[in-house]
């Protein structure tokens, strides 16, 4: 009986295969947090809508593990068909030669053109000679989250309960002092004991002074050194005044804000879903908002990075498969409104400028930051999981905890990174 059933099933399967001619697309990403859940939902939706294409997704560990695996897998021709890639990592990716070129024909198969995206992100996704090597998917940055309960009755909330009146560093520090007075354990929370958290705040403060981390082949050239020292000095000052948490790991820095112990938080847009979910559940206990990081130092800008889709080099894809891969990428772009729910700003103009996104809160409040965003320097030693990030945990984090003078720390960053750039 069982044998017969098996036979029947096999026969059915055999007849089913040629009828469908399904393309299998292997997909790698590094999205394991709240945004990973949303990405998996997107993949499932795609698979439902496309009987002829099936995405098999694998989520790998973010950072060096992911990028090391990509490099070794591509070298032996065992890479995925499509993968997520940080645009800040593009210079190293190009140097390693792990990214296939994305031709205009590919874009046509995806149903998009270069003009469908913001020019800055297309530039970031291209090599110096203008060849496209990835399709931008989003722009993500840090934003300033605020807890209204600490600011009520002060000049920092307007009639609508929105954050206002922070136009320079002095205003911001006044708000921090006020929050401290009102009992905030850490008035501004960010991951002071973590590489990414520290780097993003440092880089924002540096860029807001008009400073550059790397110019040409030089690290912190000229007065950029003083500007870096100034940024570290500000962060140190926040620590000495008890305005920021001591040695906070990433999770702890989030928990400080969600549990109402911080008035502000400088963190990535990817925590927006966390806040929304908590508010919906009714466990947040206060009203919150998020705005782009105010202009504290004279120039309006914020650290930002982008997720993109890339096709590994050294692949032996059939034209049909490549077409399927581009279909996947195109579909993801057109449906990136769901991805915006993870806090990100879509890189695909039609969605980013569409009515639905413009109404999406709090994204709409801070979406303007995309126009003035500061990406990581275009260098093989900068970007996710790079020596620049290492410098944040190795030098900046201990310095802001008082283990080195700001100038000393800036000089060490310069020395360390300069050596790596050789």
């Amino acid at each position: 009986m069982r044998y017969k059933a098996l036979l029947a099933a096999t026969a059915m399967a055999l007849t089913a295969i040629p009828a469908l001619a399904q393309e299998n697309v292997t997909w790698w990403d590094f999205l394991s947090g709240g945004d990973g859940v949303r990405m998996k939902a997107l993949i499932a939706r795609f698979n439902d809508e496309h009987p002829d294409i099936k995405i098999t997704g694998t989520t790998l560990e973010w950072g060096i593990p992911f990028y090391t695996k990509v490099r070794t897998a591509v070298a032996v021709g065992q890479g995925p068909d499509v993968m997520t890639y940080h645009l800040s990592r593009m210079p190293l990716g190009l140097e390693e030669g792990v990214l296939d070129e994305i031709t205009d024909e590919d874009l046509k198969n995806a149903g998009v053109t270069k003009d469908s995206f913001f020019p800055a992100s297309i530039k970031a996704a291209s090599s110096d000679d203008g060849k496209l090597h990835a399709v931008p998917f989003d722009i993500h940055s840090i934003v300033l989250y605020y807890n209204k309960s600490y600011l009520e009755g002060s000049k920092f909330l307007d009639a609508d309960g929105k954050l206002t009146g922070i136009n320079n560093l002095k205003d911001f520090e006044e708000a921090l002092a006020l929050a401290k007075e009102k009992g905030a354990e850490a008035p501004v929370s960010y991951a002071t004991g973590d590489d990414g958290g520290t780097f993003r705040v440092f880089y924002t403060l540096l860029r807001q002074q008009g400073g550059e981390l790397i110019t040409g082949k030089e690290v912190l050239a000229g007065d950029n050194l003083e500007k870096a020292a100034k940024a570290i000095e500000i962060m140190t000052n926040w620590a000495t005044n008890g305005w920021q948490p001591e040695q906070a790991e990433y999770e702890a820095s989030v928990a400080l804000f969600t549990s109402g112990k911080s008035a502000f938080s400088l963190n990535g847009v990817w925590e927006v879903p966390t806040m929304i979910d908590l508010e919906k559940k009714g466990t947040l206990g206060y009203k919150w908002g998020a705005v782009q990081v105010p202009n504290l130092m004279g120039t309006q800008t914020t650290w930002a990075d982008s997720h993109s889709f890339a096709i590994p080099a050294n692949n032996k894809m059939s034209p049909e498969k490549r077409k399927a891969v581009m279909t996947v990428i195109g579909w993801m772009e057109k449906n990136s409104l769901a991805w915006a729910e993870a806090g990100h700003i879509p890189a695909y103009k039609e969605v980013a400028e569409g009515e639905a996104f413009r109404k999406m809160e709090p994204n709409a409040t801070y979406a303007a930051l995309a126009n003035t965003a500061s990406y990581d320097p275009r260098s093989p030693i900068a970007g996710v999981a790079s020596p620049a990030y290492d410098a944040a945990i190795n030098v900046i984090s201990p310095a802001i905890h008082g283990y080195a003078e700001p100038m000393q720390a800036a000089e060490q960053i310069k020395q360390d990174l300069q050596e790596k750039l050789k």
Partner: protein
Amino acid sequence: MPMLTNRRKEMAVAASLVAPFVLTFVVVFLYPTIRLVQLSFTNAPLIGSGEWVGFDNFIRLLSDRLFLTSLKNNGYFVLLTVVPTTAVALGFALMIRRLRGALQALALAIFFLPYILPVSVVTQIWTWMLDFQFGVLQPVIEFFTGKPVSVFKNPYWVMPTVAAVTIWWTNGFNVLLFIAGLRNISKDYYEAAQLDGATRRQLFTKVTWPLLWPVTALVLTLQLILQLKIFDQVYLLSSGGPFNSSYVLLLMVYREAFQLNHGGYASTIALVLFIIIAMLSVLQFQLLRAGGRR
């Protein structure tokens, strides 16, 4: 004539017996080593071949500040671990030897237990015990220093703490070696010495210590080699920071190779570390042997 064929046969048998080892050795050790040396003279990426650059990598290494820092940190770590762990192991072994039967087995098991844990588990345990906010050991630290210390993020605490964790983790094996060494010393010597009126102190300095010396020399040499190869604990606990104060040579190899895609330069560092370890361990073992012959 028959002698000759016999000899030939013997050779063939011998060859076939050593062949598996020789083959394995050549394939998994000798060949990679030769390739490593070759690579260290090129500018190869992590995967694929590069161009011959002569001694460029070595010249660059000598002027690489991070290399000198790492070398210094490796030396510091050796100082913090090799002799202390040997002394601690000897102390525990002497104590365990006094126990009898099941109690002795239990004590041995307790000391050996950490050794069988994987390094990731060990570092997790200690990360939590020493956690800045919630660590159970923070009150102890607070008692001595007046305030909690984020040990792996403090440039002065990081290396001693990593050393302490390492000693806790690996000490069981050394205890075992010492126990074996102590059991090999015949009871007769002690009895004879006691008849001559030797004190307990004399028993140790005149009987135990000299007779145990070969084992002590072995433990010291093994520890030197092992501790020069420090990587896992540093990578997992402090990733080289803060201010490079726990940056070690193997971490440098790892970062150059896997983060920056510099296969050639990473090979150069690895080769230099290999030479340093080989030289130091031979030197140390010879010195210790000379010391033992006194």
